[in-house]
């Protein structure tokens, strides 16, 4: 491995860290949103659902542009950064996390919402008639029954964060060890004609993508069997 620069692993580590943190935040933030979307009877909930789903159709550069404005020194992100003496959240790891959470939100919220909706009212009614408070019913019935949705959401959210490129470039730039993630690194290697390094990273991503898809399909099969 002598010919390879040591910092080929730096973007990999950074990417895994970013994806893990993003997925964790999304599971915490996305679950109540998914629950509300699945259970609420508010007429405007589909509006909220559309906003959550927006990153699916929006070009990453558009999303990245607005995030840049928001996270920059003149936006709320800048004000937030001021709290700990920074000037801006753009071009920082924290900024990347915020961007990734927004970008990957639909991939986590949608499967969890579908899983909650698939449970239906009955198990929760049963729990209520067995003296379970709504909180207890949520933790002991809704969450376990929606487990396939949580698994799918986590895998998809993680994978999408790993593969993100456009937004990272817009709001993170290319700072080694801070914002230079895998996809940007591959682009960089290609730009500088380091094909071997580009190949290793790209090949690794392809293998990773395959494992993700395979996991998803196996999960789906398992879920279908349980449902039968």
């Amino acid at each position, binding site marked *: 491995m002598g010919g390879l620069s040591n910092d080929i692993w730096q973007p990999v580590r950074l990417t895994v860290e970013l994806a893990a943190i993003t997925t964790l935040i999304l599971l915490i933030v996305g679950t109540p949103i998914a629950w509300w979307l699945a259970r609420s009877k508010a007429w405007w909930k589909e509006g909220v659902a559309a906003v959550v789903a927006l990153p699916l159709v929006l070009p990453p550069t558009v999303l990245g542009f607005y995030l840049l404005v928001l996270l920059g020194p003149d936006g709320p992100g800048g004000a937030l950064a001021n709290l700990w003496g920074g000037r801006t959240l753009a071009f920082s790891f924290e900024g990347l996390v915020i961007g990734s959470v927004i970008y990957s939100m639909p991939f986590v919220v949608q499967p969890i919402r579908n899983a909650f909706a698939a449970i239906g009212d009955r198990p929760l009614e049963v729990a209520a*008639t067995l003296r379970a408070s709504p909180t207890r019913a949520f933790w002991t019935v809704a969450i376990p029954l929606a487990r396939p949705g949580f698994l799918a959401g986590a895998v998809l959210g993680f994978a999408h964060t790993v593969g993100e490129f456009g937004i990272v470039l817009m709001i993170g730039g290319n700072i080694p060890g801070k914002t230079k993630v895998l996809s940007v690194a591959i682009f960089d290697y290609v730009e500088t004609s380091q094909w071997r390094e580009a190949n290793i990273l790209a090949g690794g991503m392809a293998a990773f993508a395959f494992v993700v898809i395979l996991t998803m399909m196996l999960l789906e099969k398992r879920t279908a069997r349980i449902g039968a």
Partner: protein
Amino acid sequence: MRAISPRSIRGEFRGQLGGFALDASFSVPATGITGLFGPSGCGKSTVLRCLAGLQRLPGSFCEVDGEVWQDTQLFRRPFERPIGYVFQEASLFPHFSVRANLEYGAPRGSRSAPGAIAFDEVMELLGLERLLARSPQNLSGGERQRVAIGRALLSQPKLLLMDEPLSALDRLTKDEILPFLERLHDRLALPVIYVSHDMTEIERLADHLILMQAGRVLAAGPLHDLQSDPALPLAVARDAAVNFDATVESHDPTYGLLTLRIDGGQLLVPAPPLAIGERRRVRIAAGDVSLARQAPQGTSILNALAARIVAKSPIGRSEILVVLGLGPQGEGARLLARVTRRSWDHLQLAEGLDIFAQVKGVALAPERGASSDQGYAAAKTAG
């Protein structure tokens, strides 16, 4: 302000549900099994959901055994009501074992609470012991429903609500579960509201009845009273019958006949011997009763009971439903007879007349807890 009435279940549920108007008011004793009966879509399940708090109709009122669960200011949510609820589908938690399902609603550390329904008793009553380690996916439909009933009982309810618990099951499975329900009735002092559109289930289980039609309560009261009220649809139905409790008086081993005492008379029924004093439910169909002006002689019919005609109601053009009061003054239990209008005129029958009711068939409920494929029909006689 309403007066609190202990030992009763009172509901006044009204409201618009989609295109359906519900306006159901009733008061029944908080003892025994109360059947909630009516055609499909008449609102019986909605009434049950209102009692459980699963459905909230503003402006309604609900009081159970002296505790108000809903009025204009108050609404207890389902988990705040001491109920057990058995749904049409067993609805077991698929991610729990049978044991975990059973224990889900059981209050912690109350196993020895006085009057509590014991785990072992429920296991024995419903035959659940050998299912405990299984997963709900590996149970038959009947087993699942038994677990669901056990789960509801172990939550230590003060009122058990059952929403057509047998209607999703096939005939054989139904007959497997009915004896369990009858045992429940005999052994536990737990009031039950039992929704059904199947009169045979009601006749076997219910002590009281709430009769519903198109979102309204037609009548509520003891089963026997409603069955014999000629103004209600039950008495004039094709399969009209009355049920009453009978006490075993004696057994004649020579002919294999039981003598049963009912209110206002005696019945002879061919049946295996039973303990003196044992109580059984009997059913007599209106079509199995004929009338005679004099005490019948030279007949193979075993049972001819002195009775008085207390009411009548025409059925179509050619038949008449006759309500009889057993006993010389007609003060005993009510019996239904269906006769032709021609016979009515020929015999010069009239209300207030003393006559004899010849009973061609008496159906004796099967032994409580014993499984029987035919249910009532098993003991149906032709004598």
